[in-house]
């Protein structure tokens, strides 16, 4: 626009051009050169046509030469194939000592066991230790707290001037929630945000400079939490995650690395995923003004919109498994020891499983039909809490602001695992009195 302000239509056209160039490239290179784990594709949001081609031409795909931190790996890209792998934990391991849940090659001297990166039977008992925090009864107790905080944050937003939606709302709200779940000192809550970012960031891309820095900061994290553990273990059991871990039969004897691993799981699981869905929701509504109109006309659509946001965002793009034996999938033989990435982000766009999957539709017939929470024994334990947070945020937004405009391009996280946003500029338009 001539006055230099953000032109959303222009941004959409630029995005379409970028996508067209990516599509041309995706369909012009040999299949074996497709490397969907390359983070460059995720910061530019241009991974879509590569997955589209894989689903059509090579749905169980072997990337021989993934970039150096990953190496060769399989990509499973279709809904039912992902279901098959995700539910077959006897064949496809999550064990941290075999490689865990992300594609990056792991350092054998810095392995973080956590229950999402464990196999049975240890996984089941550790997961059950913390699952009461997201029981229906617990969610009922948390709902008024979340609503009060969301209301306070939304009331504090500036009207008529630009602010960062990610920082002011998405991060702050999920971090406050996480502090409550841990009964973590509230004034230090942004440490949780920092540790979440440190745990998943690639060195040299803005969050941390080196792997050594990551370790140092994560050791600070476990030292901090060890102080909390020592307070809670000597007190009667309470309904917070640290107390649950400290008193749980299967978790009370964890060593330092296993404690750190489970902390990182709970911090990242409770922080990044909801944060990025809150951010994504605002962006999708701005990109799809017809859906935003639908929402304003009928706020009863919020629950189904929340599921659609979670599908459309897919805040964790994949989970990795390691084959424990040779296995045939889609006519391909996955060898024992191979890395396998289940790309939920692609399964959520599989046109053979979901109608019009590339469209953001807030009143879908089956809004909960998606794979963002995974399937099988590792299905997201906090899924109901995440949905509740998103629902409350949008209920409270609509009470206050009929429109919140995205006024600039989002900055996306440099990661093919956490599909998220570093920043998203927004403005609440001033209303005439």
């Amino acid at each position, binding site marked *: 626009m001539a006055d230099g302000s953000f032109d959303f239509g222009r941004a959409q056209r630029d995005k379409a051009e970028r996508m067209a160039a990516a599509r041309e490239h995706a369909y012009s290179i040999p299949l074996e050169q497709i490397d969907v784990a390359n983070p460059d594709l995720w910061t530019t949001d241009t991974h879509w046509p590569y997955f589209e081609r894989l689903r059509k031409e090579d749905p169980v795909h072997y990337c021989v030469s993934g970039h150096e931190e990953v190496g060769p790996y399989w990509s499973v890209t279709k809904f*039912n194939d992902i*279901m*098959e792998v995700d*539910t*077959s*934990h*006897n*064949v496809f391991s999550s064990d941290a000592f075999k490689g865990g849940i992300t594609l990056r090659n792991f350092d054998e001297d810095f392995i973080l066991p956590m229950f999402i990166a464990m196999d*049975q039977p240890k996984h*089941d008992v550790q*997961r*059950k230790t913390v*699952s009461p925090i997201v*029981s*229906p009864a617990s*969610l*009922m107790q948390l709902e008024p707290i979340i609503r009060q905080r969301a209301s306070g944050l939304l009331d504090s937003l500036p009207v008529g001037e630009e602010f960062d939606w990610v920082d002011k709302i998405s991060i702050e709200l999920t971090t406050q929630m996480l502090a409550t779940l841990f009964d973590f000192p509230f004034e230090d809550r942004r440490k949780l945000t920092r540790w979440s970012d440190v745990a998943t960031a690639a060195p040299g891309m803005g969050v941390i400079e080196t792997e050594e820095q990551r370790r140092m900061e994560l050791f600070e994290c476990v030292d901090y939490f060890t102080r909390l553990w020592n307070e809670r273990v000597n007190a009667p059991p309470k309904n917070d995650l640290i107390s649950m871990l400290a008193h749980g039969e299967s978790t009370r004897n964890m060593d330092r690395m296993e404690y750190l691993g489970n902390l990182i799981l709970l911090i990242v699981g409770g922080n990044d995923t909801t944060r990025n869905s809150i951010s994504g929701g605002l962006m999708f509504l701005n990109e799809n003004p017809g859906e935003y109109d639908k929402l304003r006309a009928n706020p*009863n659509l919020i*629950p*189904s919109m929340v*599921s659609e946001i979670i599908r459309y965002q897919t805040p964790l793009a994949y989970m990795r498994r390691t084959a424990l034996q040779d296995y045939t999938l889609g006519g391909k033989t996955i060898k024992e020891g191979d890395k396998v990435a289940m790309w939920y982000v692609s399964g959520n766009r599989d046109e053979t499983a979901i109608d019009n999957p590339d469209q953001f539709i807030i009143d879908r017939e*089956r*809004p*909960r*039909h998606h794979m963002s929470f995974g*399937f*099988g*024994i590792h*299905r997201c*334990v906090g899924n*109901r809490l995440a949905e*509740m947070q998103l629902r409350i945020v949008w209920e409270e937004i609509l009470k206050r602001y009929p429109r919140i405009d995205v006024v600039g391009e989002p900055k996306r996280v440099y990661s093919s695992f956490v599909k998220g946003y570093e920043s998203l500029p927004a403005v609440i338009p001033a209303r005439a009195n």
Partner: protein
Amino acid sequence: MRPGDEALVVRSLERAADLGGDLTPLVYARLFADHPAMEPLFIRDNDGQVRGEMLTRAFEAILDFVGERRWAATLIQTEVVNHAGYDVPPDVFATFFGTVAATLREVVGADWTSDIDSAWSRLLAELDWYVKHPDQAVAAVGSP
């Protein structure tokens, strides 16, 4: 299961869809009548989306199980484990498929033939085997 069972099960599902429309309220009314302890687990499902999706997934699992059987057996095993985490005992989990079958029988009425009934009996017996054997290591050795 026997050859032909897939067609019989599919026919019964199609007939129920023709006659009964959305089966969700009927299935859950029966489930809660038989197992009142299950109702509070859905207390936050105000708009019925969770119940609807769970039933649709059960139908999809049944269709996969009587057909290609790519993921239904393992999904059932993992759901037994997950539901145990919500304190839903395996026998109640197993009951859900029986509740679905009983609801279908009621909706389909006179079109529920003895062939269909036998196919469903065999299907429920095999599903029950996976419910009772959620350990995939064991199941791999002794599956029916």
